[in-house]
C-alpha cells in the first residue's frame, strides 16, 4: 500500500477526487492543468542534479558559480527550477554534508522531484541531526575516520543539494559519463560515490 493507514483506505483518494472536481466546477483548475502538473513533477528527478554535479566536476568556474547561487547555476544548464532557492554544499576530503528537513520534508523538488519516502520518515528526521553516522550506517555508508559531518536542516526558504566528491579513477571522463555515476542518495548525503578501479 502507498502509506495510507488501513482505516482510511480510499477516504483520502475520494477526498482528492472530490476536491479536484469541485475546483474544476468552480473554474479554478482544469483537468489538463492537473495532469500537466503531475507530468511535470514526474519529469523531475535526480538526474537533473547529476548534470549539475558533472559540470561542476569538469568546470571549476561553473562550480564556483554553483556554490554561490545554486538556482542560477541550474538555469545556466537549462534546468527550469521556478522559485527554488538552492544552496549546493560541497563535500571535501575533510567534510561530508547531509541534508534533512526535521520539521516536514522540504527538498529541492523543483530540481530533483519528489523526495523518497524515508526522507520524510520520523526515523530520519529525528535522528540524522543527532546521530548522523549511525543513520548513515543504516544506509550502508561509513565515513573515513578523519571526515567531519555537516548536517543541514532545511527549516525555511532555502533548499539544499550535496556536491559529492568526484570518484577517483574518472580522469578524462566526459560529463555524460560522469553524470551517470551520481546517485540520488549522494545528492542528499546518505551515500558517497565509490572510487573506481
Amino acid at each position, binding site marked *: 500500500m*502507498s*502509506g*495510507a*493507514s488501513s482505516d*482510511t483506505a*480510499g477516504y*483520502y*483518494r*475520494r*477526498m*482528492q*477526487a*472530490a*476536491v*479536484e*472536481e*469541485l*475546483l474544476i466546477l*468552480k473554474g*479554478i*483548475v482544469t483537468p489538463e*492543468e*492537473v*495532469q500537466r*502538473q*503531475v507530468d511535470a*513533477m*514526474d519529469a523531475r528527478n535526480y538526474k537533473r542534479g547529476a548534470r549539475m554535479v558533472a559540470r561542476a566536476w569538469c568546470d571549476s568556474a561553473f562550480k564556483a558559480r554553483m556554490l554561490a547561487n545554486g538556482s542560477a547555476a541550474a538555469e545556466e544548464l537549462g534546468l527550469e527550477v521556478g522559485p527554488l532557492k538552492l544552496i549546493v554544499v560541497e563535500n571535501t576530503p575533510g567534510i561530508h554534508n547531509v541534508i*534533512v528537513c*526535521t*520539521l*516536514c*520534508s522540504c527538498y529541492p523538488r523543483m530540481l530533483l522531484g*519528489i523526495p*523518497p*519516502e*524515508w526522507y*520524510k*520518515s*520520523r*526515523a*530520519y*528526521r*529525528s*535522528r540524522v*541531526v*543527532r546521530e548522523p553516522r549511525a*543513520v548513515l550506517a*543504516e*544506509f550502508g555508508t561509513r565515513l573515513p575516520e578523519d571526515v567531519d559531518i555537516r548536517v543541514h*536542516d532545511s527549516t525555511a526558504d532555502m533548499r539544499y543539494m550535496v556536491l559529492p566528491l568526484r570518484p577517483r579513477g574518472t580522469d578524462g571522463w566526459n560529463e555524460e559519463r560522469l553524470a551517470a555515476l551520481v546517485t540520488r542518495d549522494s545528492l542528499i548525503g546518505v551515500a558517497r560515490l565509490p572510487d573506481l578501479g
Partner: protein
Amino acid sequence: MRGVHDMGGLEAGRCERDEHEYEQWEKRVDALMMLLSAKDRDLLKVDELRRNIESLGADAYDRMGYYERWMHSIVQTLLQRGVITIDELGRKLAEKEARDARG
C-alpha cells in the same frame, strides 16, 4: 510546547529504506498543492498547509500517510479560505462513495 512535527533530536527507530512509486491520487494531491499555491492563484500558502498538518495531533500525524496529511490539510485550508463549503464537499464525497460502492 514542542509540536508533534518538531522532531529533530528525538529518539526513533531504524531508518527503513522505504521507497515506493506514488499512486495517481497521491500525485494529484501534490499537483493540487502546486497549482493552488502558485502565485497567480494564491488560494493556499505552503505555510497554511504546514500549519494545518501540524495541527493534526500526535496520533493522527503518525497514523496518517504523507499524502493523506496533505489532502486533509488542503481541505482545511480551502475551507478556512472559503473556497469550498463543507456542504458541497460532503455531497461530492457522498457521490464518490456511491460510485465506488457501485464498483
